[in-house]
């Protein structure tokens, strides 16, 4: 909310792009947090493989799941910005856009991969390997694109450091707000998933079933 207020009142209107540049304050924090979430999902998957504790797999799953939701937002807000700025909804010869789409499509296969594996241990193991590989792919991909050529898509660092202080302040507040929103939603979903697992276990126990039986039905979500 503070970030929105700053965007409306404090952030200056860009001399080159005009008011359209204000999309930057929602699009770039969304992209940074989504990509950071993908990398964090890989780190949490490493923790699962080290400890074999299903709670790490659950954390990795929730982080990647939420990052995919944010990535949808990045693609839509980016398309709106491209249309307003360049006159096209999508530009195929712009490497950053295409790389982000590739990363999004890569992670779009994460849920079907999990769903296709019935055994919970195997599901967690395979999904962790996927999360680590894809998580390493994200910084490599974007680093390579940035190093390879000077692209038309403006890097976030250039836009924040070359502008006046109010641009940097608004951007940092927006980025902080987006990070807090991401962490809060992650904790919310984690709590919901944990309570669901406890309720299922309790229901099986009250119904007189064996507590060791797996939850009924196949699911992409980890089974605690």
């Amino acid at each position, binding site marked *: 909310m503070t970030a929105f207020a700053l965007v409306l009142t404090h952030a200056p209107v860009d001399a080159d792009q005009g*008011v359209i540049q204000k*999309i930057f304050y929602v699009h770039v924090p969304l992209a940074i947090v989504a990509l950071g979430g993908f990398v964090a999902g890989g780190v949490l998957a490493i923790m699962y493989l080290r400890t074999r504790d299903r709670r790490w797999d659950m954390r990795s799953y929730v982080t990647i799941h939420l990052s995919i939701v944010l990535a949808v937002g990045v693609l839509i807000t980016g398309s709106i910005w491209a249309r307003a700025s360049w006159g096209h909804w999508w530009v195929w010869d712009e490497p950053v856009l295409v790389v982000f789409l590739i990363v999004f499509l890569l992670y779009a296969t994460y849920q079907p991969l999990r769903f296709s594996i019935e055994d919970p241990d195997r599901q967690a193991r395979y999904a962790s390997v996927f999360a680590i590989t894809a998580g390493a792919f994200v910084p490599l991909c974007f680093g390579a694109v940035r190093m390879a050529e000077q692209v038309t898509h403006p890097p976030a660092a250039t836009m924040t450091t070359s502008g006046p202080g109010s641009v940097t302040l608004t951007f940092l507040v927006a980025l902080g707000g987006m990070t807090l929103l991401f962490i809060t939603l992650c904790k919310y979903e984690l709590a919901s998933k944990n309570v669901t697992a406890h309720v299922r276990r309790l*229901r099986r126990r009250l119904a007189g079933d064996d507590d060791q039986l797996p939850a009924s039905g196949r699911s992409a979500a980890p089974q605690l």
Partner: protein
Amino acid sequence: MLVVALSSGEKYVAAAYVVFLALVLAYLGIMAAKLSRLEREVVALAELAERGDALNEDSVAKEPVA
């Protein structure tokens, strides 16, 4: 009725922020639906547990006194 005249650029900016808000609201809506389903399950479990307790009390009461 308040009518705000937006320029073409402002419409794109408004659209981008509305998309973000809609995304967050949709996510929260789905989570709220899941939470209410969970609430119904907890209520059903509580009823099942109470029924179990009542059955146990009945069986204890019916046991013959030595």
